[in-house]
């Protein structure tokens, strides 16, 4: 397919999005990531039954936390796509990249540089 997506996106593989915990998403933000998104399987098609639904709730929790501390909740997001949808993967990567570009760099890196 030779699809491209922004090189600034770092992919971290997990066996199932159900493995992604709240603290993993928070640590990424804490360490200065401008945004984090979770790409899970389509809802209802989790090999482990409900991993992607659990991830969705955790992403929602982190969104709420970001709002509470005055950061844009859009910096974290959950997407659902099947493993066969290479096109959609690149599309999502670009969508998230553009969203973050609009939001600008993480406020943690601007003020917390010291």
């Amino acid at each position, binding site marked *: 397919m030779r699809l491209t997506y922004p090189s600034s996106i770092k992919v971290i593989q997990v066996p199932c999005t159900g493995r992604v*915990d*709240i*603290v993993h998403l*928070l*640590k990424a*933000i*804490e360490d200065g990531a401008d945004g984090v998104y979770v790409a899970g399987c389509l809802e209802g098609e989790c090999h482990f039954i409900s991993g992607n639904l659990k991830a969705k709730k955790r992403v929602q929790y982190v969104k709420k*936390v970001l709002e*509470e*501390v*005055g*950061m844009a909740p859009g910096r974290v997001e959950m997407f659902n796509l099947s493993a066969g949808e290479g096109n959609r993967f690149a599309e999502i990567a670009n969508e998230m990249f553009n969203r973050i570009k609009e939001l600008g760099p993480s*406020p*943690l890196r601007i*003020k*917390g540089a*010291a």
Partner: protein
Amino acid sequence: MIVADRKPINEILDMVKRCNKILIVGCKGCVTVCNVGGSKEVGILASILKIARKKEGRPLEVDEKTIERQCDPEYVEQLKDLVGQYDAVISMACGVGPQFLSEAYPEQRFFPAVNTTFFGGALQHGIWAERCAGCGTCVIHYYDGLCPVARCSKSLLNGPCGGSANGKCEISKEVDCIWDMIVRKKMEQGRLDDLVEIKPAKDWRTARDGGPRKSIREELVQ
């Protein structure tokens, strides 16, 4: 177990606004079981506080420690070399935790990170409900396993009151009328007559009405 909810982040941030280095202490007892103050939640709170303070440009150093229980001096003692190294210590245990820590280390400041809510159980993962009021004189057996002290909004021992409608309490459609449940259960079991039996007045001196309580078990005291 004792059930609690984490305080809003801004309230916790306000407690530690003058601190640069803090310790968050979790508890492996009830608050771990109700997913509010165990090692996992300590990690989450530490990360949130660090994010918030980093964003303000005033980074906060946060260390984490979770002990077996904060309601037993033998475990609280494990913190003796640690607590002095911080500007303040946040306890994620129930209300007992920050008090036991304060009593053990009077020179340090301890802040509660959770609001202790009730004695209850999990209806399902993520949902807990009150089941006991800790009144000190259990009467559950009179009501077939349903406690009106904890579960009736008025703690009536001779309900239901006029606010009971369609099995719900007048305070909210979400709240079951426990007296409706008690009466129905008695009817199903054919023991409705139990409720007309005259019983001596309940002894409320064992509840909070008698002031702060203490339990002494002579066979255990050394």
